[in-house]
């Protein structure tokens, strides 16, 4: 039998020959060193290909696909926290906007509390005290910036920055609290 061509050897490995052909090839492989060497190499190649080296897909694929297909609806805790933080920001922004420097709202609060008795008067007094304290803190921060960096930012700007920071912290805190409450239920 003449030497085997590459296709014949591959067909033999894959079991694609008839019984007679297989037996002829087998006999030839015993006597022909050259064809046998070629056969051995194809065997090794087939074995290597049969055990693929997989490449790990990055996790981002699954995450992105799921996010695009099923966008997450914000949880109740996030919505509540956002509402609470927005309320805080809104109330204090209004306070800053309405003549924060002159403390007119604080004064108005204090005047109102004089005519109001019991718990309502106490609440108004407490609020005006908080506002006055916050105002003093803002003034102190502004003075600090002026001394250290020689920049007068203004109490209103400092106030706004602090409020944004505060609101954000409040948002995160509220989310945590709401989550805990939800978890304990």
């Amino acid at each position, binding site marked *: 039998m003449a030497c085997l061509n590459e296709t014949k050897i591959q067909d033999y490995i894959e079991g694609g020959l008839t019984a007679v052909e297989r037996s002829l090839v087998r006999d030839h492989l015993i006597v022909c060193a050259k064809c046998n060497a070629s056969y051995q190499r194809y065997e090794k*190649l087939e074995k290597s290909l049969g055990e693929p080296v997989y490449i790990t897909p990055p996790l981002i694929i699954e995450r992105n696909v799921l996010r695009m*297909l099923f966008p997450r609806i914000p949880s109740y805790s996030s919505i509540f926290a956002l509402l609470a933080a927005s309320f805080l920001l809104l109330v204090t922004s209004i306070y800053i906007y309405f003549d924060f420097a002159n403390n007119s709202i604080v004064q108005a609060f204090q005047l109102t509390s004089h005519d109001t008795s019991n718990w309502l008067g106490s609440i108004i007094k407490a609020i005006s005290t908080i506002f006055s304290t916050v105002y003093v803190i803002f003034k102190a921060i502004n003075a600090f910036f002026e001394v250290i960096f020689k920049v007068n930012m203004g109490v209103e700007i400092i106030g706004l920055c602090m409020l944004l920071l505060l609101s954000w912290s409040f948002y995160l805190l509220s989310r945590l609290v709401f989550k805990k409450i939800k978890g304990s239920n």
Partner: protein
Amino acid sequence: MSLDDDQVLIQKILAGKRASFEELMKKHNKRIFGYIYRMVRDEDVAIELTQDFFLKLYHVLDKYNFEYKFTTWAYRICYNMVIDHVRKNPAHIESLENDTIIPKLMDSENYVKEDTLDDLVKEEIREYTWSVVNRIPPKFRELILMRYLQELKYEEIADITQLPVGTVKNRLFKAKEMLKTELEKDGVLK
């Protein structure tokens, strides 16, 4: 008609069970990404195409005919996406000599640490063989990937590529001949 695992998952997805799609994606992600990555040889592009594939799969899932094997149908979508990409970006897919990125991305799970020298040699041959797969021309590479990475039969490959079974077989033989020649040239197959 008895359904296979994939088909059961598809039924659940079509019934509105999102978790089943996640399961289906997890099951096929490795093979799909492996195929795309080895065809386009650019990690970012492979990630994008794999994502696009799964998004498309989800949207056309209701058109799936349960009489056919899911993998053949899905891999055909994948094959067509890669072909489209290659047509638009021919430079991406051409054979490259530098395949240093492949060993970095090899799946550590599939590494079996063997003690014997013989097993180490076999392991090295296996890794080298698969790095050479990336160097052969795309029309041969895709068939090697379908046959050995995606474990498809000749008939299924023919169905996906729309080539006659004989052509698929001949092309695969030719691809293996190329691989053997390359490995012999590099002194890996002796």
